[in-house]
Structure formats: C-alpha cells, structure tokens
C-alpha cells in the first residue's frame, strides 16, 4: 500500500461522509454546502490520480457553478430558510436502499476487479481530453449543444408570461 493509496482512501471517506451529510441534514442550505465538500473531495481524488484537468473542471463546474445555482434555487423558492423536517423520509427504507446499493456495488466491483490488472491509460491531460472530445466523440459533443438550445427554448416557452400581443 503506497502513500497515494492511503490518501485516496482517506479522501474517499471524506467524500462519502460528506455525501451522507448532504442527505441527512435538515437544512437545505447546509446540504448545499456539504455538497461542496463532497464535490471538492472528488476533485482531490482526480488530482491524486494525476488528472489535473478533470480536477479543475470539477472545481469550476461542480463546486463553482452547480452549487451556486443550487443555492440560488433555494434562495428563490424556499425563503425564509430554516430546518425543513417536512423533507425527511422514514430512515428505515432509506437505509435499506442506500446501504443495499452501496454494499452491492462495492461487493460487485471488488469481486470483478480484485484479481485483475487493468492497464491504466495515459493520465487525463487537457490534450488527451480534447483529442477524445473532438476526434472520437465529436458528434455527441456537437449534438449536446442542440440539446442545450432545446432546453433554452423550452425554459423560455414554459416561463414566459407576457407576450407581445
């Protein structure tokens, strides 16, 4: 076990712990802030795996944009902010589903990959990512912009109140 293994495990535990806190806390805003910790920890995992570009994208997009968007949504829809016990569900079924999925997946991955050597490709530098996106996956990438356009139009159609009649 090397240093990087230990670090990976430790940061992974932080990520999982924070993720649990996201779903357990009664405060919506605190859930959003715990999410920052989770996503940040995942960014650190990327760094430890030497995928710097993915790590910084994770920080910029998820920790930066998505969480801010989430907090904005809470601000716009659920002010004043306090604990919201009405959002909680009984613990039993949640534990069953959560623990079941988590343990099931861990067992599966350990079982499948434990005694197998997987050749790790070159680390995820910006250049390699760019090549993958613009050479191998250029069509899905371009079509995603179509999806965004459709979503934009849809948002306008659904939310517009006054038309120029």
């Amino acid at each position: 076990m090397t240093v990087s293994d230990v670090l990976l495990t430790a940061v992974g535990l932080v990520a999982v712990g924070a993720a649990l806190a996201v779903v357990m806390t009664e405060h919506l805003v605190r859930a959003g802030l715990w999410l920052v910790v989770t996503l940040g920890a995942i960014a650190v995992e990327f760094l430890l795996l030497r995928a710097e570009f993915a790590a910084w994208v994770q920080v910029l997009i998820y920790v930066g944009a998505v969480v801010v968007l989430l907090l904005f949504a809470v601000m716009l829809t659920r002010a004043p902010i306090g604990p919201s016990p009405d959002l909680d569900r009984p613990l039993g079924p949640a534990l069953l589903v959560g623990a079941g999925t988590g343990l099931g997946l861990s067992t599966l991955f350990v079982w499948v990959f434990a005694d197998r050597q997987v050749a790790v490709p070159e680390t995820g530098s910006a250049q390699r990512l760019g090549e993958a996106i613009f050479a191998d996956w250029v069509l899905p990438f371009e079509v995603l912009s179509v999806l965004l356009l459709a979503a934009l139009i849809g948002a306008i159609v659904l939310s517009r109140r006054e038309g120029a009649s």
Partner: protein
Amino acid sequence: MPELKLPDIDYAALLPMLILFGAACVGVLIEGFVPRSVRNMVQLVLSLAAMVAALVFVIRRAGEVTAENAATIGGAIMIDNMGLFMEGALLVLGLVSLLLFGERTLERGGAFVPHAAVTVGSERDREQAVDSGATEVYPLALFSLGGMLMFVTANDLLTMFVALEVFSLPLYLMCALARRKRLLSQESALKYFLLGAYASAFFLFGVAMIYGFAKGVDFRAIHEAVRGSETSPTLLLIGLALVAIGLLFKIAAAPFHVWTPDVYQGAPTPVTAFMAACTKAAAFGALLRVLYVGFDGAKWHFTPVLGAVAVLTMLVGAVLAVTQTDLKRLLAYSSVANAGYLMVGLLGGNKDGLSSTLFYLVAYGFTVIAAFALVSLVRDADGEATHLSRWAGLGRRSPLFAGIFTFLLLAFAGIPLTSGFMAKFGVFGAAIAGDQTWLVIFGVLTSIVLAFPYLRVVVMMWLSEPGETTPSVSIPGVLTSAVLGIGTVATLLLGVLPGPLLELADQASSFIR
C-alpha cells in the same frame, strides 16, 4: 504538438439529421422575426418541408449502403439498411403527426397554450384563451425528431445516450403546453420529466458498467467482449439490465409503464399522437440495435428475462385497459399492450422477428395517429370530451367518424383485413419460428382480453342512444382530415396489400456491425 486527426464525416449520410436540426434552428429565428399572425403557417410549412427534404435524402441513400460506407463520423453513426428504414419510418410518421400540430380550425389558436406560465384559472388565463398558441412546438418537435433519427442509428452507447436526451427533453416540454385541462398537462410533463430523468440515469449507469466489462462503448467492441471475454459476466448482465431499463421505460413496457396513462392523457393530443407513434418506433429501433448488434452473444441470458417483461407488459396493458373510463387512458394502456406484442417479435431473435417488428411499428404508428386525431374531434365547450360515457350514441350523431373510429379500433384488436392483423400475425409467426411459443400463447390470450375494451367502445358508439351530454363531432380542418385519411387508408392498405411494406421491412432487416 501533433495535429489533431478529425474523423471522416460523410455528410450525405448525416444529411437527414442535419436538415432537421438546421430547420429547427431556423424555426427559432422565425419565432423572433416573423409576425405572430403568420407564424403558425410559416413554421408549419418549414417543418413539413424539412421533413420531406430529409425523407428524400433517406430514400436517395437507400440503394447505396455498403459495409464500407455505413459507419461515419468516427463510427458514432451507423447508417445501415435497418437504420435507413427506421429513419424513413420516423420521418413519415412524424410528418403525419406534425399535421395535427398545425390544426387551428378545431379550436381558436390551436391545441397549444400561448403562455404556459400564466396561473391556471386566473384573469389572464381567461384572456389568453383566444390567443394564438405557442408556435415554439415546431422547432421542439424537429429537435425531438432529429434526436430520434440519431437514436436509431447510434453505433455506440454514448451517442445513443445523448440522442436519448435530445429527443426526450423536447417531449417533456411539449407535454406541458395543452390549452385545455392545463393542470393535468403540467402534472403529466413533470411526471414524465422526473421518471424520464430516472430512466436516463439507469441507462447511463448501465453504460458505465458495460464500459467496465468491454473497455469500450461501441457495439462492435461490446459484441467481441460478450463473445470472448474472460471477465465475469456479472458486470455485463447488470449493465445490460440497467441499459434495458432505460429503453424499456421509453417503449412503455411494464413495470416501467406507470407514466404512460398520465402522460398520454395530460399531453396535448397532437403531442400524444407524436409520442405514441414516433417515440415507440425510435425506442424499439434502438432496443433492436442494442440487443441484435451489441449483445446477441448474451441472447440466452436476456431472452427469458425480457420474455417475462413482455408477458407482464401484455397482461398489464390488456387487463388495465378493461378498467379504463377515459378514452386517452384506454389508448395509453393499449399502447402498453402493443409494446408487449412488439417485444414478442423482437424476442423471436431471427430475421423474421426483425422485419415483423419493423412492419408492426409502421402499421401501429399510422393507426394510433389516426385514432388520436379522431379523439381531438369529439369536443364540447371544455375541449375534448374524452370520458367514455360521453361517446355513447356517437354513431347516430356522426356515422362517418364513428365508422372510422370503429375501423381503427378493430385494427387495434387485430381483425383480418386491417394492418393490425397482419402485424400481429407477423410477430407471432416469428416468435413461433424462434421457439418462443409461450410468448405467443400469452399474446393471443391477451389479445382476446384486449378486444373487450375496444368492442365496448364500439358498442357504446353504435348501440346506445345519444344522451343530453353527447358532444358533437367537430368538422375537421384540412390538416386533421388529411391525417385521418392517411391513417385510415394506411391501416386498410397495409391490411389488404401488405406486400410492398413487408418486402421493404424484409430488405431492411440486416444490421452492419
């Protein structure tokens, strides 16, 4: 720094998709610059022209498919015979259902609400009742159809996932835009969106599992990994199950069908017709490709499971259709049951199964679009009167439309001389040839059960006295008449002279890996 190598792009092969996406973008510009009074007409003509142009390029491509030129843009898209047939079928069915979008004579301003965000029942809501409806539905429908074209020709799971999102998102949006019964419509859109997002997540998770198994997401890599891998098949089976859940949700197979009745009922009827015909065809096109091209090596694993799903789908659809009192919900459950029959053909696992499934998709599409066109005609002051009791005695009031609807229902029931009979005959025959007789037994039994709700509607229309509340049948405009005509004639022709389409489907039933 080394040069970036771009993949070869065969624009001629991609043209149908590009035309649709391009026309949708032009449609967005039209929203901004063309005056409101003529916008509906301009948008309708543009959309129809785009679809016809795309169809022309699909047909022109028909004879030129070879193993060398089928895959393009780095292997992301595979335009083989099967893909071309599905593209053509989707375009034709989309064209017919788009005519319903343009209908403006049945109701002032059309079937879509102008401002979806206005509070239901408010002063402003009553004011907008006479406003011209939202014309953004045309670009949205084109985006959706373009996504479907990509969905049925996708050659790897990642492209397929992106296409799934591109065609689903506009559908969720369009569901929320009904002019009447708006709360129902909004509820249906939200339900569809949330459940659809779940299904997409399942699909994506499955793709990740399969990547772990096959070290690739394109179907050739998956095929080779399935045949020759020493990895334990657990990952493969879990991945395949999750991907299948995502696709079964879209084809409305039980137990992933719960959204269907609510969404079919709440969505504007033209959108319902579009979904019933095109979404089903697109999702089956993709399911066929995934199972026949990627995972045919795992046939012995998935056939029993999917067979059980097919039986459950047929049973749930048929039994629950009996209990329905709303015509749109009845047609929704019938659509669930039909997904089951289509799966019977698919699980035949042979070339006949493939071609009969293709035939079924086209035949069912025409019939269901015409049926929903007729539902949009029977209306009172509150919009469409879809409750079954309101249809009592309709045969006395307007024998022509009641006659057409009777014919369409008989086609759903699979009476000879209709396309429904030929289609069911085809899929059941293929399943027997593929040693799946147990599926056929359930298929025939549920067909008998399913005939009951159809015949009940027929009996109500013809043998009951028209009551005080029996609504009148609106005189359809040119567009709805055209849809009714095309749908009914196609249902009859495919029942009497199925030869040409069968032959076409037979030629199309080959994949290139």
